[in-house]
């Protein structure tokens, strides 16, 4: 792989140990996937920030990079608690202090507390921009909905790209790898709720492949749900929707595999993963809620109260919560709590409940491995839980 002068200096170690390791990782990935050169990126997003996941080993590994600084806009995935309310999530002081240590290590590298799976609400890349993002739902959103380009980075390779400002030029960065191989038609137009179920169903069927949808509601939050669910069950890096997503033109040829999915088929599938029970808690915001979702929820819950014995937790990013402080007040006045920096999947909050209402396919997939869940339409659940 061709390295420019600066990259040669990085790999020689003369720019420090952190950059040396980082450049070695990029070079190795490039060699492995047949890249001829690197490409400059505008943004990076790092997974593996939660102490629950990476442990003391993760802290040790991150410290190896401490003599370097990030060189592009860099975002972090959620952690196990809201930085403002750690004790709402855990009593374990050692755990809190270890988690804060990880956040400090990132601060020292020049990364600040975005702590969200939706970096695109912090910085919206343009069509054709190259990124190194590691959060799976953000990867599929960036490639599909925004037309930006990122491979499925690991937490560490995203950090390496963040420090060097580069990634190896292969995979989803190249036009020829962004075509669909399955054509999906439906007898319904997937909306905010049905898209999340459809995503789980399709991901499960066509692992790793790029799908072309004949139709879906032209709504960013619907597309976010579709991609997040599809990536949870199927690790797909991208999808196209006819007339909607930026690269749908010429993304599929007529020879490809075609399938037709009926509304009743995904309802049958939903019933298999969703229990017929009435949980006491709703957790929504996977991926983190957008301004638009928060506004819709506020419009719906205004002047209502969460019923006695029921709890509702919403998750979003710090930026979205701050930007919508008036609306957040309306929602919190009903008894709903809105947390930032964390979510129902990565925080220990779910441990207190035996069953949970969920409105997103991605969270159902992960939490459904441990608990009984009800996957249903967000506004239908709010109707049941509020008066």
């Amino acid at each position: 792989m061709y390295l420019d002068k600066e990259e040669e200096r990085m790999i020689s170690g003369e720019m420090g140990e952190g950059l040396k390791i980082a450049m070695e990782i990029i070079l190795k990935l490039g060699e492995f996937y047949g890249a001829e050169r690197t490409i400059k990126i505008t943004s990076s997003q790092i997974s593996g920030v939660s102490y629950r996941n990476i442990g003391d080993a993760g802290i040790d590994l991150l410290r190896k990079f401490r003599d370097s600084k990030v060189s592009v806009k860099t975002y972090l995935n959620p952690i196990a608690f809201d930085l403002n309310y750690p004790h709402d999530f855990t009593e374990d002081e050692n755990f809190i202090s270890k988690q804060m240590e990880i956040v400090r290590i990132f601060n020292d590298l020049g990364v600040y507390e975005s702590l969200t799976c939706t970096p695109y609400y912090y910085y919206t890349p343009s069509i054709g921009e190259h990124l190194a993002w590691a959060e799976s739902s953000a990867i599929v959103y960036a490639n599909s909905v925004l037309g930006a380009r990122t491979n499925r980075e690991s937490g560490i390779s995203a950090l390496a790209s963040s420090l060097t400002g580069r990634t190896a030029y292969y995979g989803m960065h190249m036009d020829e790898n962004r075509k669909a191989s399955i054509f999906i038609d439906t007898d319904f137009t997937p909306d905010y709720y049905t898209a999340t179920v459809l995503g789980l169903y399709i991901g499960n069927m066509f692992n790793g492949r790029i799908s072309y949808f004949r139709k879906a509601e032209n709504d960013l939050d619907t597309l976010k749900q579709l991609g997040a669910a599809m990536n949870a069950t199927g690790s797909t890096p991208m999808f196209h929707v006819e007339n909607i997503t930026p690269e749908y033109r010429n993304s599929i040829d007529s020879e490809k595999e075609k399938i037709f999915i009926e509304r009743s088929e995904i309802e049958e599938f939903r019933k298999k993963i969703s229990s017929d029970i009435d949980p006491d808690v709703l957790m929504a915001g996977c991926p983190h809620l957008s301004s638009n979702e928060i506004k819709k929820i506020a419009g719906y819950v205004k002047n209502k109260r969460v019923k006695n014995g029921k709890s509702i937790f919403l998750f979003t990013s710090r930026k979205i919560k701050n930007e919508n402080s008036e609306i957040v007040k309306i929602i919190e006045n009903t008894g709903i709590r809105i947390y930032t920096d964390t979510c129902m999947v990565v925080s220990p909050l779910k441990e207190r409940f035996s069953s949970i209402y969920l409105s997103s396919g991605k969270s159902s997939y992960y939490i459904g491995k441990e608990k009984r869940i009800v996957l249903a339409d967000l506004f239908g659940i709010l109707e049941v839980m509020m008066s």
Partner: protein
Amino acid sequence: MRFKGKSIFKGRVEGECVVYNSGLSFLGGVDPTKGIINENGKNISDRVLSFERSIGSTVGSYIIYGLKYYGNPPMAMIVNVPDETFITGALVAEIPSLAYISSYIFQDGDIVHIDGDYVEIDVDLKEVVTSILVHGDEMLLLRRSSRVSTYQGKWAGVSGYIEGLDPQSTAIKEIKEETGIENPVLIRNGGKIYVRDGKRLWAVHTFLFHLKNKNVNIDWEHTEYKWIKLKELKNFETVPGLDRVVQNLLL
């Protein structure tokens, strides 16, 4: 027998193999503090771990590094299909690792020598073809006679050793000999899969053919034949790996 892969982190080691013939997600799938695969409790610490593909959370790199950090690193890792998460994990943990060698080549307890891009084990490799013949939604199973050298009485596809001819020509020759059928229509060349049986390692070149009718004339190599539906396959006592041959060709 020596196999060539592609090294991720070069090393020269010799050790005992632990095999996981499936996709492995390091986050959730491996406990780095104990050095075990959670699902089956198998110890991978100080062993050569061979698995089919790396899947799952992009946090997996930290878990691979964790294996080293907590003092339980595998001696080496062999994966058939790697992803970015595995590659970065192997690099930062500095565990000798290589890719593009199937886990189905190995079995637990094999002594494996690794040197850069190469892996060596003591097996007896034989190249064979296996063709699956289909008509409509049925496939043909043949029962091996007592006069063939291996797997007598077991159900199989149309198979034979590759000697002289290329795999596809061998497949067509064997179909004519064993079923009397000429000019079957090739639908898919499924490539090569490995099937391990003790010291014997079969490299099976797999083919899917379509037949215009169900008329079959078996020769001395088989005692009977049956047309079955795909889902009935599990009810038959087959030669080892036939389920994977079928899966490879039909799914």
